[in-house]
């Protein structure tokens, strides 16, 4: 398994109260699979991501990446947030190299790998630009290039499209899906956009409200995972979205 959560519970304790973010979460992601996690806001989606990245440990249970327990930040996992987190004082190419610098990769090889990912993410020609000179969509692509440059086994995407306008979002989902399919990377996408989950994933995990636990698991049995723009027009998409809608009990909440 590329990623496995075994009975994972995470509690945060502050001075005067304890808060259970996620409770007894179990799931597995196979190598090369694209899995989305959807759920209401504050259900612990980002907690799952942070534990996979090794930024903090589960209170109970185990998180395994490539069958090895995650004990701290590690090079098997690359993550991306809604914010692109590009360093504004670095050029795009040197931003892409950032993740390789602490790994003892020689300078020339760093540049090589970064240039390759730059081309992969359709940013060729922008290597010497600074982040402020790029549009929001291009900046997110640069962030993806940086994530791919470290050649992680798993890519964690935490709502990477939610700050973009609707059209840029569609194009970027398409470009991300293409790039990820090409590299064959295992991917975990955290999102609150139900259509996005359907368009991009092989499988969708639905989390309940806090304390988050998995209430449903939906296989998306549609072709062209690498082209969300093509999936978008398939009639089944609406059915899948409706299923998710039901699992999230959105109608009851609206009433």
């Amino acid at each position, binding site marked *: 398994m590329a990623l496995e959560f075994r009975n994972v519970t995470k509690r945060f304790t502050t001075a005067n109260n304890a808060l259970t973010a996620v409770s007894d979460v179990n799931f597995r992601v196979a190598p090369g699979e694209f899995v989305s996690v959807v759920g209401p806001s504050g259900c612990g989606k980002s907690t799952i991501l942070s534990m996979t990245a090794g930024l903090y440990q589960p209170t109970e249970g185990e998180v395994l990446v490539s069958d090895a327990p995650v004990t701290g930040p590690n090079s098997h996992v*690359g993550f991306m947030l809604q914010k692109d987190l590009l360093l504004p004082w670095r050029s795009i190419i040197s931003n892409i190299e950032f993740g390789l*610098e*602490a*790994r003892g990769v020689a300078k020339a090889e760093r540049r090589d790998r970064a240039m390759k990912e730059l081309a992969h993410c359709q940013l060729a020609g922008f290597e010497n630009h600074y*982040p*402020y000179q790029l549009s929001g969509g291009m900046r997110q692509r640069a962030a993806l290039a940086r994530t791919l440059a470290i050649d992680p086994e798993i890519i964690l995407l935490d709502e990477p499209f939610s700050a973009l306008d609707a059209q840029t979002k569609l194009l970027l989902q398409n470009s991300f899906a293409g790039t990820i399919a090409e590299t064959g990377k295992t991917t975990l996408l955290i999102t609150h956009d139900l259509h996005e989950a359907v368009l991009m994933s092989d499988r969708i995990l639905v989390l309940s409200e806090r304390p988050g636990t998995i209430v449903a698991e939906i296989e998306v049995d549609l072709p062209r995972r690498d082209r969300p723009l093509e999936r978008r027009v398939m009639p089944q998409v609406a059915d899948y979205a409706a299923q998710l809608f039901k699992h999230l009990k959105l109608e009851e909440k609206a009433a």
Partner: protein
Amino acid sequence: MTEVSQAVAGRSVPATSAPARVGPRLMRLANPTVASLILLVIVLLAWEFLPTALDVPKFIIPTLSDCLAELARMWAYEGLLGHFLSTALYTVLGFIVGSLLGAVLGYLLGMSAFWEKVLSPYILALQIAPKVAFAPLFIMWFGYNAMPKLLVTVLIVFFPVLVNVLQAMRTVDRDLVNLARAYNLSRLGVFWKVEMPSTLPNLMAGLRIASTLAVIGVTVGELVGGNTGLGFLISYGGGQANAAMVFNAILLLTVIGYALYFALVKIEARVLHYLPRAEH
């Protein structure tokens, strides 16, 4: 009216692109640099002719020509160049030492929440205390030499840099730090590659404030004790009712402060080249 205000707003707009009915002479007036220079000329003329016209004696307000004559005399007989260079040197030296100390301590405290909490009340107290009031103490301790004025300058420069750096260290984007940690950067790596560059805009702002204060520190040090520097010339000239000498010393101190400030603005533009320019 609108034509003129547009021209003021668009500094880089060449005069030729303005509507034809506004004359070229009026356009030049609307250029802020030209307007600024015209203002200078008006002030200089007023300075030259108003005191005589209003019968203000020379020892109260010397005219521009009085001051220039005194400047030539100071150059020839008072060793003005030496005084000027001494003040300039200690301004720059005090600025460098003070801001280095402020920056280093700011970064150290910024990395340790514990020590920041322990020391912050005392730092605040020292920051509030009027630093120039320390000058007589320093003279008692170190005597009539360059040390007291250097120390006053260091002390006065230290705080704005420290406070700006500390503030910036507190507000470094946590997500950026987490990203660097996820990429296996060491604590020191996180500092050099994320925290330190993130704080550069604040550091530069602190340095700019400090550069204007450095001149004050040196001047007070020289006023209170010692026999060199422009501050000394101020107290010496004051003692002789030589207002022109005092005027000249103040102007030259301003020149030193101005030069330091603009050097920093140039450095800042270089260092922070990656920030989008604000549209003026």
